[in-house]
């Protein structure tokens, strides 16, 4: 079993870990770093529950090897808040009832955050396009669309995500 040493910053905290070479990034986050907010919902890269940001872009962390993130910066749902206050996207999901069971939610929130980093003011069609890679079984998506629109109108992706995208984190 081959192993690698990796240096990965997660939510601004540096880490140096020896991991199995075949380890998936999602398991690095959940098992090695203990950040269980990022979920696994499938094994075929369809559901997006594991979506995180890696060096400013959203990725499905179940299809990224940990070694591929070596030297990178990762932002997870745990890192979105601003000094204890939820980010606009997180607030939008609460205000518009964009979640029910909450299992797809971290991935959905990260996908929405990524979308708002790329498009300041997406229309409904662009929002649906932007979250198309994330599956939710509870909401039927309409109130998720409302949530993302709410976020766009109340501060966009938020300062933590902007800082991450600008490479400051």
């Amino acid at each position: 079993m081959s192993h690698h040493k990796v240096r990965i910053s997660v939510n601004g905290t540096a880490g140096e870990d020896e991991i199995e070479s075949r380890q998936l990034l999602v398991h690095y986050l959940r098992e090695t770093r203990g950040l269980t907010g990022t979920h696994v919902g499938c094994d075929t890269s369809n559901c997006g529950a594991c979506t995180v940001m890696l060096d400013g872009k959203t990725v499905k962390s179940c299809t990224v090897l940990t070694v591929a993130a070596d030297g990178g910066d990762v932002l997870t749902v745990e890192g979105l808040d601003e000094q204890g206050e939820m980010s606009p996207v997180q607030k939008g999901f609460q205000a518009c009832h964009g979640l029910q069971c909450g299992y797809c939610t971290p991935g959905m929130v990260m996908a929405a955050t990524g979308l708002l980093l790329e498009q300041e003011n997406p229309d409904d069609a662009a929002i649906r396009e932007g979250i198309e890679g994330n599956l939710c079984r509870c909401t039927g998506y309409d109130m998720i669309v409302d949530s993302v629109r709410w976020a766009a109108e109340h501060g966009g992706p938020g300062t933590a995500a902007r800082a991450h995208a600008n490479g400051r984190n």
Partner: protein
Amino acid sequence: MGSMVGASVVRKEDPALLTGRGRFVDDIRLSGTVHMVFVRSFAAHARIVSIDTDEARTLPGVLGVWTNADLEGLPASRSVPGMERPCLAKDKVRFVGEPVAVVVATDRYLAADAAEAVLVEYEDLPVMASIEAATADGAVPIMDGLPTNVVLEQQLSATDAEEELAAAPHRLALRLRNQRCAAVPMEPTVCLADWQSSGLTIWATSQTPHHMRNEIAQMFGLSQQEVRFVAPDVGGGFGAKASFYPEFLLTAELSRRLRRPVKYVETRSENMTSMVHGRAQDHEVEVGFDDDGTLLALRVRITQDCGGWPDTTGIGLPTLTSFMSGGCYKIPVIAPSFRSVVTNTTPVGSYRGAGRPEASYMIERVVDRVAAELGLDPLDVRRRNFVQPGEMPFATQFEGIVYDEADFPGALAKLLEHVDYEALRKEQAGRRDDPDAPLLGIGFSTFVEMGGFGPTPLFEQFGYVGGWESANVRLNVDGSAVIKVGTSPHGQGHQTAFAQIVADQLSVPFERITLVHGDTATVQEGIGTMGSRGVPVGGSAVFKAANKVRDKAIRIAAHMLEADEKDIELADGRFSVRGAPDQGVSMAEVAVRAFKPHLLPDGFDLGLDETAFHEPSNLSYPSGAHCCVVEIDRGTGKVAVARYVAVDDCGTVINPLMARGQIHGGVAQGIAQALLEEVTYGEDGQPGSGTLVDYTLPSALDLPTYETDHLVTRTSFNPLGAKGLGESGATAAPQAVVNAVVDAMAHLGVRTIDMPCTPQKVWRVLQAATRNGS
């Protein structure tokens, strides 16, 4: 303080879930935990010749490999009596995905490696992966000791209605298929068992923790106090997590043997063949009617595909379909019967609606077909046959099945306030004349279903100890409140809804109320969350417990104010004496006083802590009227939902925001069943939809926006007047969509199409109809 019930407050649940601080089973870390992985059958029906575990046992990190033979004495998984399912296949396998062996290793990757190294030799048996194959002449019985694959047959009426059908002016036969669907909660099955000398604790993805505790205790011969079952945050269930799974027993047993916590995390690909599927019913229908569309007689013969092992819930589903087969119509004679068939496929159990969507689809397709035969408007046929509001409660011909208060014509009338039906029909006619325009179809669904499951005699038939729900409401010394409830939410928002109920009853601020659920060690008793029973049954128990606390608080306030209890009023958190509003004490002052024996009458029971059970007098019957407008691309057959309008009557609405969420989610699943989803098998029993690549779970691009409204007819069957809402959307939507799809092509002579209405299927129907028409 205004009323909290009826207010669109945002959810208490959300901040934890939104910040990654939720606690799902796989998030729980116990030191020393080891990981269990299954070796699953890749054969659909085969005798197990040998299982070679030698290599697997030698691999790094492996603590052991077990087959059925290594687990002698382990009880069967919960089963239909006489059809006991072993936790691991014994002698033969009956469907692809059935567990054959388990491996436990120190790490989930190592466990998966070792599972790969287990070699199983199979000798093929004839595969019967469909109802047709399993009931064909010469089909081999899958269940040992049974003569055929039909495991249960029942006629639910005194006659087969042949006389009435023969006498009717018109008679029509239909075959309908409610295809097999997968629930696909975003969190698959996960469990973590820790068997210590003091007893067993198991954390698992379940909708019914107390029920599971009872089952597990009984199976292991433990007393119930030795078993703690916890359902923490659960990532969706949709009925499929109400079933019992062998992994609950296996992780427990292996934890006992290894003296370490054992965790099992199902992959999605495993989930697609291992978690119970839903629906899977075929209907042969005959209906008799007269010239104006009045329904005179209905016969429906249901065939339920049970899969490879009959599930205790699954085997009861066609009974519910039978009971609901008349829908919201007065039909003088209804003759339902069913047969349940085992096949070499994944077992079938509950899926959102569980037996009622199948009935609603059938009767709503029947009504549209009757209208088409007679050249009548489908709404006129509905109106002609509705049970009228003045006839409620309405006793159906089935004993104990009594519809509560509802207004079926009123719901349709309210729907038509949102839909300009005449304009749509005009638009449709215009489109038909323009070969470049997409076809337009308008479909309706006026439905009634069952909610608020119990009562106890009904629920006993599904293996539950009761059909009641249990709640405890306690005030702390500072006047804040804690609710403990036996329902076990997995997305429904009980923390919020039940706090709203208690806030109103006790005049305690919503922010100062917390809900505890899902843990048999802390919650007194419970049944669980399924059958749209959260609010009507669980909420009613909460309501009753809160009222008991209120009654006691009034006694204390009366003592403090030296007034008669009858004269005490509670408003805005303050008790006062009627007629003397300036004389009063706050709820917080009363709460403190409840703990001061020397300041209370002699012998007064201390504390404000009350438990109540609610046994519903009967099921409730949520109903409503939905309309779907579709556009069909003539070139590709692709169906797009242009509009979806839902008017629901769930009685009292506790939280309109969350009610909207329930309707959206249910309708989404119904639309997806109508257009996209189907679990398929090849003739060899190999799954054609074993991953999310193949099973078309809808994305945001596949689903429309939804327009919703409510008609509120309170039910008299529970103190809240609430009927339940969780399953209405999934029950109402499939036929609204399919009726619209058929309607779009009706001018070409199209009368039927099977779900899912995929582009390919619709295109073929359209091509055939165009050829025939020209």
